[in-house]
C-alpha cells in the first residue's frame, strides 16, 4: 500500500496544475518542491497564456497575481543604429484578454497555494534526490535515505530535469536542446510605465527582439515585458553560438541589449532589482524524452514542451495543459489500479490530441529558423537599408518600392537562390 496515490516533483505551472487536478478528484497527492517558498528558484520571460488554467481554476484572472494583460504585442529587429518593429495593438486583445505578464516567484507561490486548497499536501524546501524503483517500476521518491511511496510519480522539474536525467529517463542535455536566458527586473512606478509605453492601467506591452548587431556573430533574441510596476527584460542566447564564439560573456550580452539606444530609454531611471538566469528548452520535438513509463509521466519543460518561432513564445501554457493531462491519465488509470507503462501510454494519446503535441509537431525544426544567420543578420540589415532608402530624404531621385527592396536585398547578398530558398523554408516553418 503506497503512502500517496501520486507524487508530483516540482511546483511550477506543470506540477501545481497536475496536483490541483488530482486533488480536485479526491486523489491523495504529494507535491514536493525544492525551493521555499515555491517559485523562488524559477525564472521565466513572462507571458502566461492562460486558457488551460481556466479549466482547473475558473476565474483565475481575478485572484492570480498577474501583472498586466498584453494589449500591445511587438516584434522588433535591432541593428546597431536602428529599430524596425511591428507593433500590434487591438481592441480585440483588450476585449479577450488571453495573455498576461507574470512574475514566477509570485505566480508559482499562488499556484502551490491553490494546490493546497484543493487538498494536495505541499512540501517546500525538500529536494527529491532520486526516484524509488521496485522491479523496474517507479514507486516513489527518495531524499536523504527516506523513501516516500506512491502509485505513480509525475516529474515536473522544469528545464533542467535532474531527477529524470539521473534516473536515466531523460538524456543529458546538449547545446542543441537548450538556450540560455538571462534576465533583469527594473522597478519603475506604475504611472511611468503607463506613460512610457502608452498603456492604460492594467494593460501591458510585450516585445520580442531579434538582436542583429551583437559582437562576433553571437545570435541572441531579446525580450521586454511590462509588469505592474516593473519591467522584465532579457536575452536568450543560443548555447552553440555562444560556444563557437567563446570570447563573449553571457552577462555582457544582456548589457549590450539593455544599453541599446532604443532599449535604454525604456528602462531609464529604473532601479535594477533582480538579475536571473536559466536554461531554456529549445529543442522541440527532437529533444523530447519518452514521456511515460512504468509508474511515471513527465510534463512541462522537463518534457520539452516549449516553443518559440521568434514571434511567439509559449511554455507555461503547455506546462499547465500537460500537467492536467498527466493528472487525467493518472485518474483514468486509477479505475483499474494499473500504473504500468501500458496503461500510462494514454498520456501520449491525450497529448497528441491536444494542441500541446500538435504545436510541437507543426513547428518541428523551428530552431533552425530562429537560430539562423539569415534571420539574425541578413533580415535586420536588409530591413534597415530598405527603411533608410524609404525614409531618408537626401535630395536624390527615389525609386519605386520594388526597386528599393531589390537594392536592399542585393546589398545584403540575398538575391542568390540559396537565400530565396532560406526565406521559403523560413516562411514554411514559421
Amino acid at each position, binding site marked *: 500500500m503506497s503512502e500517496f496515490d501520486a507524487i508530483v516533483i516540482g511546483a511550477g505551472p506543470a506540477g501545481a496544475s497536475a496536483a490541483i487536478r488530482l486533488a480536485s478528484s479526491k486523489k491523495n497527492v504529494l507535491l514536493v518542491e*525544492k*525551493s*521555499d517558498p515555491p*517559485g*523562488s*528558484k*524559477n*525564472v*521565466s520571460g513572462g507571458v502566461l497564456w492562460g486558457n488551460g488554467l481556466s479549466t482547473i481554476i475558473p476565474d483565475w484572472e481575478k485572484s492570480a497575481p498577474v501583472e498586466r494583460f498584453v494589449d500591445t504585442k511587438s516584434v522588433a529587429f535591432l541593428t546597431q543604429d536602428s529599430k524596425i518593429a511591428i507593433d500590434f495593438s487591438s481592441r480585440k486583445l483588450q476585449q479577450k484578454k488571453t495573455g498576461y505578464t507574470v*512574475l*514566477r*516567484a*509570485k505566480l*508559482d507561490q499562488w499556484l502551490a497555494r491553490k494546490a493546497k486548497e484543493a487538498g494536495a499536501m505541499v512540501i*517546500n*524546501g*525538500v*529536494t527529491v534526490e532520486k526516484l524509488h524503483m521496485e522491479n523496474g517500476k517507479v514507486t516513489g521518491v527518495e531524499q536523504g535515505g527516506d523513501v516516500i511511496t506512491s502509485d505513480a510519480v509525475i516529474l515536473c522539474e522544469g*528545464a*533542467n530535469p*535532474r531527477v529524470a536525467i539521473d534516473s536515466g529517463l531523460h538524456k*543529458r*542535455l*546538449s*547545446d542543441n536542446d*537548450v538556450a*540560455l*536566458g*538571462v534576465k*533583469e*527586473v527594473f522597478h519603475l512606478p506604475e504611472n511611468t510605465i503607463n506613460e512610457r509605453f502608452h498603456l492604460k492601467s492594467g494593460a501591458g506591452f510585450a516585445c520580442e527582439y531579434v538582436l542583429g548587431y551583437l559582437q562576433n556573430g553571437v545570435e541572441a533574441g531579446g525580450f521586454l515585458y511590462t509588469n505592474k510596476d*516593473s519591467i*522584465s527584460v532579457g536575452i536568450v542566447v543560443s*548555447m552553440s553560438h*555562444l*560556444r563557437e*564564439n*567563446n*570570447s*563573449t*560573456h*553571457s*552577462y555582457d550580452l544582456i*548589457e549590450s541589449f539593455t544599453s541599446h539606444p532604443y532599449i535604454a530609454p525604456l528602462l531609464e531611471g529604473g532601479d*535594477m*532589482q*533582480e*538579475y*536571473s*538566469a*536559466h*536554461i531554456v528548452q529549445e529543442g522541440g520535438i527532437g529533444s523530447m524524452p519518452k514521456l511515460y513509463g512504468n509508474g511515471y509521466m513527465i510534463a512541462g519543460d522537463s518534457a520539452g514542451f516549449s516553443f518559440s518561432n521568434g514571434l511567439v513564445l509559449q511554455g507555461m501554457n503547455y506546462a499547465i495543459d500537460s500537467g492536467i493531462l498527466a493528472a487525467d491519465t493518472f485518474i483514468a488509470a486509477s479505475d483499474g489500479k494499473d500504473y504500468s507503462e501500458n496503461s500510462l501510454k494514454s498520456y501520449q494519446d491525450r497529448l497528441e490530441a491536444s494542441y500541446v503535441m500538435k504545436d510541437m509537431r507543426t513547428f518541428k525544426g523551428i530552431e533552425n529558423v530562429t537560430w539562423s544567420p539569415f534571420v539574425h543578420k541578413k533580415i535586420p540589415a536588409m530591413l534597415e537599408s530598405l527603411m533608410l532608402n524609404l525614409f531618408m530624404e537626401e535630395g536624390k531621385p527615389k525609386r519605386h518600392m520594388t526597386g528599393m527592396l531589390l537594392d536592399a536585398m542585393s546589398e545584403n547578398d540575398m538575391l542568390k537562390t540559396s537565400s530565396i530558398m532560406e526565406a521559403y523554408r523560413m516562411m514554411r516553418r514559421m
Partner: protein
Amino acid sequence: MKIEDRLSVLNYKTDKSYAHITIKPDICETCPDHFCTFACPANCYTLIEGKLNFKYEDCVECGTCDLACAHGSVTWTNTKGAHGIKYKFG
C-alpha cells in the same frame, strides 16, 4: 553595471556544508577552451593567473555549466533543502 553589482542584489541562503556543483581541477588545468568562464551568467568560473577558480556561492542554478563543460569536469546537483538562490520576482 558590473556583474558583481548585479549579483549583489540577489538573495541567497548559502549552504556552507554542501557545494551543489563541484569541479575536477586536474581536468580544468588541461582544458583547451574554458567555455564555462564565458557561459556562466553568474561569473562563478574565472581564470586567475591561468588557473580556473570556481565558487558555488554565487550560482543562480541556471544549469548552464553542466552542459557548457564538454570535458567532464562539472558535477551538477540540485541545492539541498531550500538552500541556494531565492528570487523575489523570477
